[in-house]
Structure formats: structure tokens, C-alpha cells
């Protein structure tokens, strides 16, 4: 057992940290966020040049054969600077759907395009009443000759404002909450009948509501079994959650560091406020939460690509619950310990708080995953 990075992984981490230190300071990020597209096309190209878009794909498919550890490194680095580019929806989540669901032809078409940064993806999955249940799909896909016609509305689609194509869950059989009868389809954002209402999320990242109005797609738009897509969606979401955990750890570490620095320089009553024990202990609580979260991000990463769905799900539920809880503790305390400054938009700490909050509300908050883990029998059984 070891927790160390390989030499190549260390190089990846160092070079990405260097790039982001140079180009993703808080003021630079504010300018990027203020631009109409809400992210930096220039940074997107740099990530592609570095090979980040090709990371998780196998070498046979034209990728770099990276493991979930490489994804963890990238996402933690993005979490530290609150990067706004739609890497996660495209490469992590979309990439997982391609890797685990795409046949040879689909992978041959998509992987090179994603790898060079030419294609952006989003997973249009959530619906008005689905909350975080991946099986709750009312959007329909009905057979039309060899292909399908898709109708329905998808909400809070992360990266949906900038996506070129959408992965869509749609019901091919059964009723709204059945596990069976769900297909995963790839639909062009410009296809007839697709309308995208782009918006900003609370944390500044891009999102969209996407409506599919009788959209025709070919037989080759289906990823995997048109009635058995739920397992694929779950698998991809598990990989996505593991990456979000790493991003959250990056954000938690960064806001903890900001907070500790502030405690050292802010003076009241003639002393640095970090002299006050009650504030010290809150800062320690944040530290403990961050380290526990880091441990769980390692755990999620180690299970992210596991073929054992039960083992994987237990780990992902546990990690997402811990990170939701710890992220909230860290974020709320970071704002509190900064006092009024923490409330201001022009200071970084609130933006970290918003990002970890958004991560908690993405693909299941702490309570959702706690409930799911408890329902499946917990983590530790008798020897």
C-alpha cells in the first residue's frame, strides 16, 4: 500500500500547478468569469496541449492511458484555483461515458476529438422530479425506423451552456422510476429540436436547461444497451463523483490556507486574532475535515474505475457523504473566521465556499449518499 505519486504523476502535478499559478490567480479568474462564455478558451487550449484532455482514455483509443489518480491530480489542482473550464463534464464525466459505454466506432470518433480539445460534452441527466436518482427518467426515446426520437427536459446540466454534444438519459421502456428501460444517447447540441437555455450556476460554472423536442437521432447514437443504460450512467457518475471529491479537497485546502493566513495577519484587541483559542480550534476543525476528506478522495479514486459495482458504490457513497459534510464545515467556518471580509464577492474565500457547496449539491448531497450507504448495509461487516 502506498499513497505516493509516480514520477510522471508528480511531473503532471507540478506542471499543472505551475500553469495555474501563473494564469489562474483570483483576479485573473474574475476576468475569465466576467467574459460572456464564462471560461477561458486559451486555458482550454493549454490543457489540451498538456494532454489533460487525453488523460483518461486508453492508448489504443488515442488517449494517454491515465488512471483515476491522474484525474484526481488534475481535479485537485482545478479545485485549488476554482478553474471554470468545462473539463469535468467533458473529459471526466463525458469521458467515462465514452470509455465505459462507447463501442469501437464511437470511441474512434469521439476520443480524438475530446483529446485535442475540439469537442465539449455534457451529461443531460437530471429532471424536474428526479432529484439525484439516476433511475428517475421521464424523458422518452421512442423507436423511429432504425433510430430514435427523444423528447423531454433536463435540468441543471453542468457544462450544458457550452457543450457541443449531450449525453442524454432517456426512457426506452417501462415507467418513470424503473431501473430497466433507460438508454444513454449522444445528441448534437445543434440538432433540430434541441434548445439550450444556458446560465451560470451559483459557483460561476456554466450550466443549462436543455429541452429535447422530438429530436431524431440515428441508431449509432445509443451507447451500450438501449434498455440497460442505467449501469453505464451509474458507473460514469461514480467516476465523476470521485473526481469531484478531489476537486473539493483542492478547494478545502486552499480556503483553509487562506483562513489560517488571515488569522495570522488580522489584528483586533491589539493581537493577531489567531491568538484566540476559540478561533484556533475552528481552524483545527477545518484542518481535520480537510485531511479526512483527502483520505476519502484517495479512497474514491482507488475505487473509481473498479468493475465491482457494489464495492465501488459503497466507496463513492462514503466519500461523497464525507466530503459533503466536511466541505460544508470547512466552507462555513472559512467565511465565519474571515468575518465581514468573508462575505464579500471580491475576496476569494466565498467563492471556494460556493464551489464546495455546489459540489455537495451535484450528484447527491451528504444526506443522499449517507442514506444510500446505510440502505445497502454500511461499510464494515463482521469478520
Amino acid at each position, binding site marked *: *500500500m*502506498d*499513497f*505516493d*505519486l509516480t514520477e510522471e*504523476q508528480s511531473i503532471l502535478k507540478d506542471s499543472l500547478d505551475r500553469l495555474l499559478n501563473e494564469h489562474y490567480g483570483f483576479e485573473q479568474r474574475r476576468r475569465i468569469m466576467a467574459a460572456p462564455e464564462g471560461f477561458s478558451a486559451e486555458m482550454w487550449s493549454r490543457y489540451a496541449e498538456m494532454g489533460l484532455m487525453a488523460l483518461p482514455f486508453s492508448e489504443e483509443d488515442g488517449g494517454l492511458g491515465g488512471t483515476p*489518480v491522474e484525474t484526481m491530480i488534475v481535479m485537485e489542482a482545478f479545485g485549488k484555483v476554482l478553474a471554470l473550464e468545462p473539463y469535468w463534464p467533458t473529459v471526466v464525466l463525458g469521458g467515462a461515458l465514452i470509455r465505459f459505454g462507447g463501442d469501437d466506432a464511437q470511441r474512434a470518433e469521439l476520443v480524438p476529438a475530446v483529446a485535442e480539445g475540439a469537442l465539449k460534452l455534457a451529461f443531460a441527466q437530471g429532471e424536474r422530479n428526479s432529484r439525484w436518482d439516476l433511475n428517475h427518467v421521464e424523458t422518452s426515446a421512442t423507436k423511429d425506423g432504425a433510430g430514435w426520437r427523444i423528447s423531454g427536459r433536463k435540468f441543471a446540466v453542468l457544462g450544458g451552456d457550452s457543450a457541443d454534444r449531450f449525453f442524454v438519459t432517456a426512457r426506452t421502456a417501462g415507467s418513470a422510476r424503473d431501473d430497466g428501460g433507460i438508454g444513454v444517447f449522444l445528441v448534437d447540441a445543434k440538432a433540430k429540436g434541441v434548445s439550450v437555455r444556458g446560465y451560470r450556476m451559483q459557483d460561476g460554472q456554466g450550466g443549462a436547461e436543455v429541452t429535447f423536442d422530438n429530436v431524431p437521432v440515428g441508431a449509432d447514437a445509443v451507447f451500450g444497451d438501449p434498455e440497460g443504460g442505467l449501469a453505464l450512467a451509474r458507473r460514469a457518475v461514480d467516476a465523476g463523483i470521485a473526481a469531484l471529491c478531489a476537486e473539493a479537497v483542492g478547494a478545502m485546502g486552499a480556503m483553509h490556507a487562506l483562513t*489560517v493566513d488571515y*488569522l*495570522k495577519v488580522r489584528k483586533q484587541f491589539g493581537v493577531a486574532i*489567531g*491568538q484566540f*483559542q476559540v478561533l*484556533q*480550534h475552528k*481552524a*483545527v*476543525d477545518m*484542518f*481535520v475535515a480537510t*485531511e*479526512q*476528506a483527502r*483520505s*476519502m478522495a*484517495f*479512497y474514491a*479514486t*482507488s475505487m473509481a474505475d473498479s468493475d465491482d459495482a457494489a464495492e465501488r458504490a459503497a466507496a463513492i457513497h*462514503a466519500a461523497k*457523504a*464525507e466530503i459533503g459534510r466536511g466541505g460544508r464545515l470547512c466552507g462555513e467556518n472559512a467565511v465565519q473566521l474571515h468575518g465581514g471580509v468573508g462575505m464579500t464577492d471580491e475576496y476569494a474565500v466565498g467563492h471556494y465556499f460556493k464551489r464546495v457547496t455546489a459540489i455537495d449539491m451535484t450528484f447527491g448531497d451528504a444526506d443522499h449518499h*449517507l*442514506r444510500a*450507504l*446505510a*440502505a445497502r448495509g*454500511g*461499510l*464494515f*461487516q*463482521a*469478520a
Partner: protein
Amino acid sequence: MDLRYSKEEQAFRDEVRTFLAENLPEDIRRRMIDGDYGNKDDLVTWSRILNAKGWAVPHWPKEYGGTGWDPMRQYIFLEETQKWPAPQPLPFGVNMVGPVIYTFGNEAQKAHYLPRIANLDDWWCQGFSEPGAGSDLASLRTRAVRDGDHYVVNGQKTWTTLAQYADWIFCLVRTDAQAKKQEGISFLLIDMKTPGIEVRPIVTIDGGREINEVFFTDVRVPAENLVGEENRGWDYAKFLLGNERTNIARVGVSKQRIARIRELASLEFSGGRPLIEDERFREKLAAVEIELKALELTQLRVVAADARRGKTGRPDPASSILKIKGSEIQQATTHLMMQVMGPHALPYHSHDFDGTNEPPIEPDYAGSAAPHYFNYRKVSIYGGSNEIQKNIIAKAVLGL
């Protein structure tokens, strides 16, 4: 990064399990499962079985009886014995005074005391805390005055765990009243049979008798019982308290508790169905399990870092959180277990403590639930309270 145990580590784990299955007497295991942890005879029996195998003090240097296992094997051994569950070694000997003696003691002390600690021939207790010296340990006042070949010790220690069984006590004593408070302290080994020592029990809130006051009145201690140098005792005490980072989290103990809670929660009923099916209960249990999983991995990060750097390296900053989270989780498991028992947790099972022959109150496995809950408040108090731990992290890790 690879979070799987290697084949060799798996094989080692199997070897430990096989040894436990073949060597730990079943009645001892049964008492451990039922929560009877303080049984002296069981601990002596098991310590000698381990010592005969050469496994009584795995973490000691090989020349003093250690196994030479790397930190990961030491951790696996510990976890397996805790999960089994087997009695846990008496910490005052093998984890506290033993390492102080082999690190700072002289050859005669090493030769005499270390084998006796490993075999539990000597039952050690810890004489640190005093009525006026708890978290502020350095203000201790028990004094030792040199008189020829002896020190004459006067004063009082308190919270002395299992002193009623002890053959020896290691004490921090003040040998220089003029020096700064940390600089006038020495580390002394005292035979509990020496005239002038009196042990008085302190009954704890669970009704148990685990801790004591120890009074010293003109107790004459041979000067050769001084460990290391006079007035350097504070350094040795800091070494002792900072030495332990493999077991402080007690992950294996909590894993065993949780498995037991799950087992008993399927026997106890609530709302006409097994308690384990109650959403509120099972989610509380799962929340503790998640915390424990995170703690286990944090612990393993520390162990892996120790294995790579060698034990002399600076501890991973994560090690400082092991005591805090470990104690919180242990306490949470005791509360959950009491909740499993519900109204059956209410009767006070006095026979657990006074050895009378009354038939047990049913169900007999419920008797230890509430006492453990009460008793385990201690784990966030002893060894530096959790608040003190936070002060340490704030200073040493965060630089506040």
C-alpha cells in the same frame, strides 16, 4: 498510489488470523466480545502466549524483543488483534515505559525491565497526573529529594489507571524546585511494594474501579531507578506521549464495535422490526462508519509514510488528528451500542464489578452498554484532552 495491500501483506494478515484462531482461548475472546476488557488474568494469559510466539512487543527494536516488522505489518497485526478481538497489551508497559527505557535507560535497566515488560511479569502503571497537574502536566509537585543512594519521594499522583494491579509505577517527579517548571523534572521507576505507597480507588461514573490515587510518603527509591539524566524527565515524557501514532486511533477496536453493533441491532427490535432496518438508526451508524473509514485511511497514510521514511522521520501532519477523530469515533460507537440496547441498557449489572454469584440480568450482553458509554468519555480526556490536541495542532501544524 495503490491502496491495496500487497500479496505479502495479505499473507501476513492470514498468518495473524490463523495464530489468533489457534491460540487465543475462546473464553477470553467471548469476554472481549461481551465488553469485559479489564480482566487482568486474561491479559496476563494472552500476553504470555504472544511473548512465547515472539509477538508481545512487535514495535520494539529487534535487539529488545521486537519482531522487525515494518510499520504496515505492525499495523495489520494490531488491527487483526483488535478486530478478533483479543485483549490489548497493557499500554503502560509495552507502549510507554518500555520505549523510554530502551531509548534513554542504561544497560542494566534494559536488561532487567524489558523482558519482564514483554512477558507481563511486571504490571506497570503511569504516575504523571496530579490533582493540580492535568493538562498543565509540567506544574506537577510530587518531589524527589536525593538522600545518599536514594531519592525520597513525597506527593500524590492521580487518575492512575489499574494501579491496583501494579507492580511498578513510572513517575514524573520534581527534582529541582528552583528550575523552570519543565526543567526540574525527572523520570523515576518505583516499586509499588516500597513502604510509604498507598493506593486508593476512585470509583468512576460507570461504577467501575479502573483509576486510583497513589500517595507517596517518604518513599525511598534507589537512585539507580532514575531513567536517563536528572532533570531531563520532561523530554522523556514528551517522547513517551508523542511516540505512539500507530495505535492511538484504535481503528480495529472501532471496526469490531461496529460489527458487533450491527449484529446486535439485528437482534433488538424497534417498531416491530429489527433496529438495523430503522432508517434513523442505520444512517447514524453509517455516518460513524464513514468517519471511521476516513480515519482508517488517514491512519494508513501515516503508517505508509512511516514505512517509507523510517520511524525517525517527522510524523505526517495527519498523525495529529488521529487522537481527536479516534476518540470521537470510539465514543460514538459506545453511544450507538447503548441505543441498540434501549431500555435493557438501564439495569446496573453490579456482578460485572463485584464478583457476586447472582444470576445475570437478561439480556446479559446489555450490561456493559451504558457503563461503556459513561466510561468512554475518558478517551477524549486522557493522554492530552482533545482541546489540548487542538492547541497542539494550531501551534505545531497551523503555526498559530
